């Protein structure tokens, strides 16, 4: 526990000193302020009578249920936050392993009575906590603004935050693996973003497989789909989770078990490989 606390202190102090934490929260705040000032709603007797977006009137088509509006807003913003939070989390945490592995720094950490697995594990949890604190900040702010504008408080968006952290955890494990192997923050960021972007179209793997002329390339694509994290499906699950029954059928399908299990397995495998590589590494 003391090792974990020491690593959390180290990670947060570094983030604060290097302006990462401030930039991280400033960017989030800019997003929140834009959102708060852009949306103006006119709620009469629990129903939406009028709405303005960036000062312009929006056609609401008569009296609109405010409950539906809140879930609609929150699901849309949860999807946006999903992309934003993943992008920022990787950017803010990818340096954690490469910088620790610097010559002259790693000796200071490894000369303590801590196993390497525990050291990298506590560093990972500290990084995840940093990312989770930003997700929580973003979600709480959006939730409060929606509540202030509509007088309706809807808690599902917080659980959607859990899904965002789940996806970040899986990608962070991959970023740690690359960090251990290459000791480079730049490569770690590029490879993780590359993986996330590459895995997006794989959701349509069945359509793509049908277009391939050879069986082996179709199998390869399916294999990649099964192994890699399901960035698109989990994003759709975030949307569907907040929207509930109103969510389109395709989004509801994303809430199946398979994308979650394979994404979790990918993260666990990456972290296990990172821990083994770190344990075997000679400094």
């Amino acid at each position, binding site marked *: 526990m*003391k*090792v974990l*606390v*020491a690593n959390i*202190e*180290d990670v947060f*102090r*570094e983030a*604060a*000193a*290097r302006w990462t934490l401030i930039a991280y929260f400033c960017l989030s705040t800019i997003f929140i302020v834009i959102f708060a000032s852009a949306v103006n709603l006119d709620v009469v007797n629990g129903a939406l009578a009028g709405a303005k977006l960036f000062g312009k009137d929006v056609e609401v088509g008569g009296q609109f249920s405010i409950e539906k509006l809140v879930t609609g807003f929150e699901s849309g913003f949860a999807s946006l936050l999903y992309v934003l939070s993943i992008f920022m989390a990787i950017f803010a945490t990818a340096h954690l392993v490469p910088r620790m592995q*610097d*010559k*002259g*720094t*790693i*000796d*200071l*950490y*490894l*000369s*303590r*009575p*801590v*196993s390497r697995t525990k050291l990298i594990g506590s560093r990972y949890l500290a990084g995840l906590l940093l990312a989770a604190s930003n997700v929580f900040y973003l979600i709480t702010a959006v939730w409060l603004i929606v509540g202030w504008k509509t007088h309706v408080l809807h808690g599902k968006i917080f659980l959607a935050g859990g899904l965002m952290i789940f996806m970040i955890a899986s990608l962070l494990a991959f970023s740690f693996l690359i960090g251990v192997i290459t000791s480079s923050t730049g490569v770690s960021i590029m490879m993780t973003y590359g993986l996330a972007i590459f895995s997006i179209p794989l959701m349509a793997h069945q359509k793509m497989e049908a277009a391939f002329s050879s069986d082996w390339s179709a199998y390869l694509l399916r294999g990649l789909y099964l192994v890699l994290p399901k960035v698109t499906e989990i994003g759709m699950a975030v949307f569907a989770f907040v929207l509930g029954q109103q969510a389109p059928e395709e989004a509801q399908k994303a809430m199946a078990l398979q994308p979650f299990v394979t994404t979790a397995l990918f993260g666990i495998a990456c972290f296990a490989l990172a821990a083994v590589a770190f344990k075997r590494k*000679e*400094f």
Partner: protein
Amino acid sequence: MNEAVIEVSGLRKEYRSGFGRRVITALDGIDVTVRPGELFGLLGPNGAGKTTTVKVLLGLTAATAGSARIAGLPVTNPESRRSVGYLPEGHKIPNYLTARQALSIFGRMSGMETAAIRSRSVELLEKLKLSQWIDVRVKKFSKGMTQRLGLACALIHQPQVLLLDEPTDGVDPVGRREIRDILREEAKNGVAVLLNSHLLSEIELTCDRVAVLRAGKVAAQGSVEGLTRKGAKYKMVAAPIDDALVAAFRESGAGVDRVNGHIELSVDNVEHLNALVDQARARGAMLTELAPLRSTLEDVFVDLVKAPEVQP
């Protein structure tokens, strides 16, 4: 005699390099022991295996063969490092931390409680003359101050063993003396200190025993006094020393050289030396100084490093 806290026996380390996996032997069967309260110096030219020895002791690199134990535990067990304080050469304490924060993080990683870290930090920074800088970020520190903070980080958890790589690097002469005093005080309290340095004068001033490494082997090991003593050679200052006395000494089988108003005697043993002293007195010479002749550690080091390697 206390039991050794650092025990290295038959330690061997091979690295494989390049595509042909060429084998490079960094350590070739090293045996070293350091006891509590001892100040032990590790000497050797670049590439002799000093840093590799320390790295193996800290578990930073794995030994190919042999054994290394600290405080009775094999170095592969992370618990062995609970008794170790380490100051690496060219260390980089994260520069976004203040002295207090660095000691807090490394103290906690060594299993210390918050209250103990707080009081020990104040005590150490006071001792290392950094108490005014306790809440200043490391990036504002001079090289000497960073080095002293590194030493504080190594000492925070009151280790039984101190492994120090060039501890006085970048420190001014006054600071160097202060660090030496601290190391002596730690040794007096029973801490075993293993010092790895290129500054032979520093080792000579600080250490009780040394090992000289050459090409991964221990070329010589012993007390600084023992290694620097020039066999059975003595300096005699007496008056008068006339040619008849010198001739009498030579007749007894002693080697005699006149050097700047005194003579240097090479004798077989202490009895032989005493016989020469009796002879000088019998001839009316007044003895004012008789001392064993010593080389500097640097002379011993250069001789050992330059000597042709004896093949088994």
